[in-house]
């Protein structure tokens, strides 16, 4: 009676339920139909089910009828499996990918306007250089800097410049794409 994939005897003691919380950050990449109200459906689902979105980015894809929504959420707080299954129930959601951390390139862009006194200015410029950030606007009192990178990199940049006095910050939230596999 033996067959691949099923053991002959299933002992109840050996059965385990799949784990609920992964404990790490997840990036979900959704392909959705570009229909009115899609975003409201997704946002509504999150608030109704008590799921907390950390970041959300929406944009077009190569197909004009399809948009991509990239969400990040915390797998230590939410059962990601349950989140994706609930999202799948939305008729306008075509595809969901829970991005594999090692196989994903994820980036966000952020703009920081920082207090830049005469004394502080040099240090901020130095940070910008280390983080490969660009100064995009300058005034006598402030610098505006554009940073691109992973969420962690942008977080880290924020921590560096915050002591100088952060006047304003705008972050896009991450977008992500799978890495191409090394060619065989």
């Amino acid at each position, binding site marked *: 009676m033996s*067959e691949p*994939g*099923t*053991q*002959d*005897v*299933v*002992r*109840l003691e050996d*059965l*385990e*339920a*799949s784990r*609920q919380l992964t404990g790490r950050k997840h990036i979900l990449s959704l392909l*959705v*139909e570009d229909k*009115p*109200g899609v975003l*409201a*459906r997704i946002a*509504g689902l999150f608030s*109704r089910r008590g799921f907390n979105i950390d970041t959300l980015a929406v944009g077009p894809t190569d197909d004009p009828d399809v948009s991509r929504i990239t969400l990040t959420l915390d797998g230590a707080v939410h*059962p990601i*499996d*349950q989140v994706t*299954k*609930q999202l*799948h*129930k*939305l*008729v*306008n*959601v*075509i*595809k969901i990918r829970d991005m594999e951390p090692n196989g994903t390139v994820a980036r966000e862009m952020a703009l920081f306007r920082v207090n830049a006194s005469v004394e502080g200015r040099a240090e901020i410029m130095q940070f910008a250089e280390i983080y490969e950030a660009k100064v995009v606007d300058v005034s006598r009192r402030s610098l505006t800097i554009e940073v691109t990178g992973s969420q962690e990199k942008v977080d880290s940049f924020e921590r560096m410049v915050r002591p100088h006095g952060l006047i304003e910050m705008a972050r896009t939230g991450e977008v992500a794409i799978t890495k191409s596999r090394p060619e065989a």
Partner: protein
Amino acid sequence: MRAADALFQALKAEGVEHVFGIPGGANLPIYDALYDADLIHIQARHEQGAGHAAEGYAKATGKVGVAMATSGPGATNLITAIADANLDSVPTVFITGQVRTDQIGTDGFQEADVTGMTLPVVKHSFLVTDPRQIPDYIHQAFHIASTGRPGPVLVDIPQDLSRAEIDYQPAQGTPTLPGYKPPTEGNIKQIRIAAKALANSRRPVIYGGGGIVNANASTEFREFCLTDRLPVTLTVMGLGAFEAPHEQWLGMLGMHGTRAANYAMDEADLIVCVGARFDDRITGKLSEFAPRAKFVHIDVDPAEISKNVPAHIPIVGDAADVLPKLTREYRALDADSSRLDDWWQRIRAWQNEHPLRYEDSHDSEIKPQFMIEAMYEATEGDAIITSDVGQHQMWAAQYYHFSEPRRWLNSGGLGTMGFGLPAAIGAKVARPDETVVCLAGDGSLVMVCQEFATAAQHEIPVKVFLMNNGHFGMVRQWQELFWQERYQSVAMGPSPDWPKLAEAFGWTGMQCSDKAELRDAMRAALDTEGPVLLDVRVTQNENCYPMIPAGHAARDMVG
């Protein structure tokens, strides 16, 4: 062709024969098209009534129920029924009129963003932006409402678009929706593992729910349960999926379920859940729910699996597909039935020690439980029973033996008072040859009593058996048991003269307050032509037992 005419062509193509609704400004073109459409329209007296009637129609048949309303207040009146259909997974399509396209967003007369308002309570919705979409959206709506896990779909149609001219081509085949592919077949490997686990289980319980009814899989369910001496319990939504009484039947489980069913869940080593969703009325305190059990969970909705209770053997699929396979796999294992002897001994002890019982009156007073028993006898168990929400609903679930599916129509998930009468109207329209009885609560019935007019106008001979206890009984019970008898807003004060009220609408009204006369009174009501209300005066302060207090474990059952 006018888009509104195409709307009805599309409905006809979907096999619709009856729609329930109320006209108004924004859906005037639709009602104008109805004038020529070859469909029967049941004119409700409140859109909520139209909505519940559509639900009753759907629950009694499995076919999609359809209700219509105008924009603004018409549409908002529908929302309770939409939410109800959502929680109980009822295949329904709601068609609302919307203000003209150029008025949308301007706070136009009778404008309400019903698509937005209902987002959290629909399976899907469509806001029409081009008249040519109307027939397509109708077909898509029917497809979505009736497949996978059924549910309500809203189609909101601006007035100018329903009166626009379009080229109508009858649709061919099943609509394709890129993001909608409900699962059907269960994974055979998982099914095998489940069969093997079951063969190794010494204390199994089969816990079935409304999904079996949805799947029209009661026969398959019975066959599966009877492959061995498997103890069976059902949720209030599943009642009828297994015959009651039966030697393997433990009764309903959950808050007002039997002790045998709840204790069996508590001590089980394997629970096979079929088309049920581990509602809190079942689990009570989650951390103490069935602490010794491993779970097989069969559900067509993947999101139900491990939502409340982690599943050890998940099987995503239609119960109608999964159950026969599970039966076959389990049979092939030729499990030793005697392994269940000890378990049955334990279950029989619970059953003997704690049968469902109540203290009957010693005079002519009618105990509510007695009323349900009388109802069972008077109908000979051969009727579609709809119910309102409250104690009477739970007593019916306990004491009326439902042995076939689609004969017990109630509002479980949303618990909507007033569901019973309009649902009975819908059920009777769908099943004119069946006896349809609404078991009403006096608190509930008054919320929808305008629908007496609907039944009278359309000559829909439903029977209402009113369990009149002069109270919002269920709430009174909670205040008595858990809120130190501080009764607040639960007495109904002077009861309306119910028979007279019914008569005012053109019904026959009857009353009974004597136990000895009750069965005959019920038979007389059933034998009287046309719609009949029987006002049954029952004990005012009876409590519904047994009961697991909210948030407690099965072990803590009281009463």
